[in-house]
């Protein structure tokens, strides 16, 4: 059987043109997907049943016992942390928010260690953006800044930019210029028309220089800015101003370096400035396939995209205080529920030292680095493979993932809904 137009649950491109060949309830071939997506669709070695850490051993337990354990753990916690959420569908994320509200917990998603700083910048200056198809059909200039799509979003170039066909471009490959700005000469830099290499930590200065040039203050620019020559800066600014439609896609090269959200703020203000001359948009290269969905769900349900603390009943938001890394590093939370992410692989060690000291329950199909810190892990169906649900693409377009296999695994929202029901029942009595 071949499932057409399947939706890839790997990165924020959320490609929905995948063909998956299934034989005997196993994926045997994947067409159209990149290497990352193909590997995910073909993934095996799932955890077979819930497991419980018992001293220095792992024991198999039932779903009922595992769900009960999680509910009890969260109910008895004083400051529970509910973290992850980017690797699951929106319906599960909604249950997570209700749960956090019920137990006065903190709910945070992986954007706090990804594009959280981009969101902080947007909250200061807004976000001139667009859907990916607008760029595909119109953009004659695309800038990748601190992002490396060949490695992180492999089909971004072929579906939307460098190698994509565009309605208003006669010969898209020829007529569309690509600029890459990075501290490393990445693979993506090799396919660019222009590569701007910045000294690490110099993004803010280079953005400021470009803003000055766009505003006509070219005289103020020194010979080099963070390793970039004045001539190249002027050339890039002119390319921007003379483009009919320009699009910037930025990555963690801006959010994780010195300056963090101030870098993004500067980039957005450059784009707002360019809109006085021509049409320009800027967007974040979101990582997980549904990290943006998690921001969306949190926002319509609580008012804030991530880092939401219900300890005082109301939704309270203060990144740096109510975000997962900070809460763990301060040894503040006394229980953690992890869904759809792997903090043990991605958080600094100090956070893991605290995870080792508190009860942890994880919902994840696979054993991962966080498994080692779990008291209980509950395997679930993989959204986009054996579970359906809503995901939001990096540009905010929501797509319903397809189910290509049927298995006995419960989906995240089924497990969470059962947990939530137990918790509501306990609170009533």
């Amino acid at each position, binding site marked *: 059987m071949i499932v057409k137009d399947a939706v890839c649950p790997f990165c924020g491109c959320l490609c929905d043109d995948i063909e998956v060949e299934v034989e005997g309830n196993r994926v045997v071939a994947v067409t159209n997907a990149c290497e990352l997506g193909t590997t995910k669709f073909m993934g095996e070695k799932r955890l077979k049943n819930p497991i419980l850490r018992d001293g220095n051993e792992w024991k198999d337990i039932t779903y009922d016992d595992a769900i009960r354990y999680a509910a009890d753990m969260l109910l008895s916690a004083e400051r529970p942390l509910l973290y992850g959420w980017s690797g699951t569908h929106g319906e599960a994320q909604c249950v997570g928010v209700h749960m956090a509200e019920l137990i006065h917990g903190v709910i945070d998603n992986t954007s706090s260690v990804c594009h959280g700083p981009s969101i902080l910048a947007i909250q200061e200056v807004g976000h001139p953006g667009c859907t990916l198809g607008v760029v595909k*059909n119109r953009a004659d200039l695309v800038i990748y800044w601190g992002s490396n799509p060949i490695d992180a979003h492999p089909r971004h170039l072929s579906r939307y930019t460098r190698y994509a066909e565009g*309605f208003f471009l006669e010969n898209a490959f020829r007529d569309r210029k690509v600029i890459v700005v990075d501290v490393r000469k990445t693979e993506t830099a090799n396919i660019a028309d222009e590569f701007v290499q910045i000294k690490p930590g110099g993004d803010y200065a280079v953005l400021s220089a470009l803003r000055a040039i766009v505003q006509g203050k070219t005289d103020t620019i020194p010979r080099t800015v963070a390793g970039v020559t004045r001539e190249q800066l002027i050339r890039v600014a002119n390319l921007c101003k003379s483009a009919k439609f320009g699009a910037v896609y930025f990555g963690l090269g801006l959010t994780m370096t010195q300056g963090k959200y101030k870098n993004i703020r500067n980039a957005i203000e450059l784009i707002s400035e360019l809109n006085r001359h021509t049409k320009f948009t800027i967007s974040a290269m979101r990582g997980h396939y549904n990290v943006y969905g998690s921001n969306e769900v949190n926002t319509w*349900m609580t*008012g804030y995209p991530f880092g939401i603390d219900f300890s005082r*009943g109301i939704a309270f938001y203060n990144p740096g205080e109510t975000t997962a890394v900070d809460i763990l590093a301060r040894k503040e939370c006394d229980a953690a529920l992890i869904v759809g992410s792997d903090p043990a692989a991605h958080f600094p060690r100090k956070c893991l030292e605290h995870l080792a000291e508190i009860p942890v329950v994880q919902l994840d199909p696979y054993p991962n680095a966080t498994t080692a810190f779990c008291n209980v892990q509950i395997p679930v169906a993989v959204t986009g493979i054996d579970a359906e649900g809503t995901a939001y693409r990096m540009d905010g377009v929501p797509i319903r993932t397809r189910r290509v296999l049927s298995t006995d695994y419960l989906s995240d929202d089924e497990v969470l809904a059962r947990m939530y029901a137990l918790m509501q029942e306990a609170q009533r009595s």
Partner: protein
Amino acid sequence: MTELLVKNACVIDPLSGINGEVMDLAIRNGKIVEEVSDAAEVVDAHRMLTMPGGVDSHTHICGTKVNFGRYMSPEDMRAGRTPRRGAMHATSGYSVPTTYGNSYRYSVMGYTTLLEGAMAPLEARHTHEEFTYTPLQDTMANTLFDGNWGIMEAIRDGDTKRVAAIIAWTLKAVKGFAIKLTNPGGTEAWQWGKNVSCIRDPVPYFEVTPAEIIRSVVEANELLHLPHSVHLHCNNLGTPGNYTCTLGSMGLIPDLNKKRQTLYATHVQYHAYGGSGWKDFCSKSEPIANFVNMRPQIVMDMGQVMFGRTTTMTADGPMEFNLYRLHHDKWSNHDVELETGSGIIPVVYRRKNLVNSIMWAIGLELALLTKSPWQCLLTTDNPNGAPFVKYPEIIALLMSKRYRDAEFATIHPDTESRVPLPAIERELDWHEIAVMTRAGQTRALGIQDLGKGHLAPGADADVAIYPFKIDEVDPSAEYQRVIDGFSQTEYTIKRGRVVARRGECLVHGSNATFWVAPKVPENYDMGKDPDFIEKFDRYYTVRMRNYPVQDEYLTRSRCIETEAEL
């Protein structure tokens, strides 16, 4: 079977011709019935004012741009927070509340039906997801067609039936309720950073004019026999002198429908400006109201501005960019491929600002100068003119000359020479307010036959009981009592259940979503049209099979099937 008897209700139900009659309302299984058994639960209304549940025919509450308004505005979220309490979830936000915040606050004001003013088809799933979390109102969505490539191409080819066919396919696919045109043609031009100046200015590349778009889409709307008319946000919003453009747009509209208007012009306050610039900016509410008074085919809503902080959000991307250049606050924009766009900026409307003061006056003037309340409905274009929680103050302003004068004394002193408001004596009565807040919306949306907006047997039992008696309140003098009375119901009843009482929401609820499915002949089915399919595949970034909104997204689906005349 559940039964409820509302006794001693002083009912104003304009669609049923009831005006202040004290009567009982019998409710069984969510519907109004002739009578109920003795076992029915009883609510004694003690002769308090009782009306059909409020209907908002133009509000921004759910979907991509609304949520982005929240996302970019933690300062607004902090400005309105309540904890989880009883059946109520936590809420945040003042001008763009969370979905629960919207739902609870509307419910406490007696509103039971809401129309989301602008939904981009590509992102419809998002709107429907948020509808699910707006549990205490029935919902429906205006669907944006202002920059739709397929439609502009069909208009260029002179093929109105194809325009209708594309609309039919799209509305059905995205489970939309009605056709919305926001700055027709302008949102496409904006994807090049440009705009159209008025209705005769051609759209770049497509070479059709806004006038052609408006006319063809109005015709297509009637070919499809949709319950609502075309819902138009005119070109040129917010610019001095734009009233001529508004009159020109309204002048395009023939009278094509016996049951309702042929054009719904939304937030007309923003389109009724005179002057050649900000220096001689003035009200042109009179020519607009006079024009509408002579044309039954047009219904408008006010788009009233109220002073204070709010967030503006619209599909009209170029207008928001212009506003950004005036305000220099944060600006978001979101263009949607092949379809439309949107923009968002926060604003503060100030009494000390002359332009803002004139805007405030214009909205009221439109309502007071339009003779029939059925033709000018009460809105703020929530949250653009003000958050909907300001509706009670607007009602009081319309009912009290004294209140208007008291407010007028606090605004910019030069306003007097720029607006006719001080000379208008009219004070609206309770019945007119009932028309402007529910009955008029119901008729304009064409949902009366679906059991909305009235209390005759067979209707959905959506009822608002306000905690005052109309014969004991003089609205002209006691305007604070009017404000308080409309701010919080004694009871809000939705589908036969008491959902809100004195400011508390009592049940979790679940919404119903109204959408249309026009039936077209086989040769007009765009799902099978090779040209349509090919363009979709080449230029959209979502596969055609993944585009339609699945049934899973509608908790209670109320599909309205129509027979298209193609």
